[in-house]
């Protein structure tokens, strides 16, 4: 059975798990093939690919194993992509320094004293202006994960806006466009809130948020129309847009993590599947931790999917409602690291489930087929 057709069938049969009866399938494939066939048909190849992957999941009588495998594969792929994009973010160009920042701001609003430039944190992403480290792990997981954000270099101007703030906004918009910035819709919001008389909501001063982008630099300029001499009335921050390497890294991360998750799911599922009712007594066995493995896996899926399903619509609405010169990083769309505790506990459940799956099956008496 070393004909070219047999070799090609053998390659396709690699989709099936190693312990599956590949030789028997090969024999049937060769028996069924017309004498002049030298390569599998497309229909045959897709049939073997589909059913080979199904065989990897084990539990052939299960109606839900494919759905569980899909859940595990997709969420693992998404998290894999998120980690890969985080790594690719390290290819981003350094932020402009203080002098460059001040020069850019003077192009936009030349009459403002841009003398307070706040240096960026020493990392691409930071939490409370510090690089992420073990010392910040508890803050990250216990409620402050949302503080983990992209580094930016900012500047501010204190004092009361002497002139009409709307004129400041108009001047900034005009200068941005003349200096090659792509300007997004200006967002206006109330400086404070009040309900009914004696306050008239229509007279509340409006703050403006201007978003713009030039090359790989994104600007957020906030104009506060209601401030005191001691508070900020202009605030600007520059950050880098998503580097190109993030896209291929995300795709590769998704594919690799999905494949790994599918193979691991299949391995654990096959190891812990119930015995066939017709298996001979000599080979009949059961897994000692089958219930624990399934319970831990189910819990992990809840802990991984719940933040994602919560964050995804929220982030979509956020992006639709506010101008974004650059999108939020991928992990934020998955509810991370705000819900990183869920992710860590879910990951722990999965590791424990895999470790339990590795336990040897124990021999048991044959179960006679029910009639």
């Amino acid at each position, binding site marked *: 059975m070393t004909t070219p057709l047999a070799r090609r069938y053998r390659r396709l049969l690699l989709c099936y798990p190693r312990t599956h009866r590949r030789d028997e399938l090969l*024999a049937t494939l060769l*028996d069924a093939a017309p004498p002049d066939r030298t390569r599998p048909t497309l229909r045959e190849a897709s049939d073997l690919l589909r059913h*080979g992957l199904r*065989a990897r999941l084990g539990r052939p009588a299960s109606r839900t194993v494919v759905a569980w495998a899909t859940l595990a594969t997709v969420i693992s792929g998404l998290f894999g992509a998120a980690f890969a994009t985080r790594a690719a973010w390290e290819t981003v160009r350094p932020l402009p320094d203080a002098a460059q920042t001040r020069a850019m701001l003077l192009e936009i609003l030349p009459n403002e004293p841009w003398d307070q430039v706040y240096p960026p944190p020493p990392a691409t992403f930071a939490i409370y202006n510090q690089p992420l480290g073990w010392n910040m792990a508890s803050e990250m997981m216990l409620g402050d994960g949302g503080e983990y954000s992209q580094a930016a270099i900012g500047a501010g101007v204190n004092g009361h806006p002497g002139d009409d703030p709307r004129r400041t906004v108009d001047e900034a918009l005009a200068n941005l466009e003349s200096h090659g910035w792509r300007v997004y819709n200006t967002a206006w919001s109330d400086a404070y809130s009040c309900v009914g008389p004696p306050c008239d909501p229509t007279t509340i001063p409006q703050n403006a948020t201007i978003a713009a982008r030039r090359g790989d630099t994104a600007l957020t300029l906030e104009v506060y129309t209601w401030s005191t001499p001691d508070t900020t009335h202009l605030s600007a921050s520059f950050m880098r847009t998503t580097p190109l390497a993030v896209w291929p890294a995300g795709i590769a991360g998704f594919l690799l993590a999905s494949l790994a998750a599918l193979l691991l799911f299949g391995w654990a599922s096959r190891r812990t599947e119930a015995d*066939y009712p017709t298996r001979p007594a000599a080979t009949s066995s059961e897994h000692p931790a089958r219930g624990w493995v399934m319970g831990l896996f189910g819990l992990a899926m809840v802990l991984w999917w719940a933040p994602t399903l919560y964050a995804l619509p929220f982030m979509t609405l956020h992006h639709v409602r506010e101008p974004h010169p650059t999108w939020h990083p991928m992990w934020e769309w998955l509810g991370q690291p705000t819900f990183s505790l869920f992710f860590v506990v879910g990951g722990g459940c999965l590791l424990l489930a895999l470790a339990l799956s590795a336990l040897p099956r124990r021999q048991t008496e044959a179960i006679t*087929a029910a*009639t």
Partner: protein
Amino acid sequence: MREPTFLILTALADAPRHGYGILQEVNALSGGRVSLLTGTLYTALDRLCAEGLVEPDHEELVDGRARRYYRLTSPGLTALTAETARLRDLAAAAESRLRTPNPATPKPRPA
């Protein structure tokens, strides 16, 4: 019970058969209408074995090719008998209705 499952069980009703034998028998039983692919057949056989309707019978080596024969189990025979009776009842009910002419239904044109 889906049609391929019914045909596979029917193919095994009179004698144990190996994979290629089942493919041929299914094709013959359906008058050439159902042509199972090998991957589909073995997924169905795995499922039927897990459900206890089919079990491996014996293995043999022919021209260097491994052949495993499958046979119907007692629950498999029961399931096939029940499905056959169900299909027969359905067919009988349909024939009975077809024998009662409905004036609103156009008559088939003569060939």
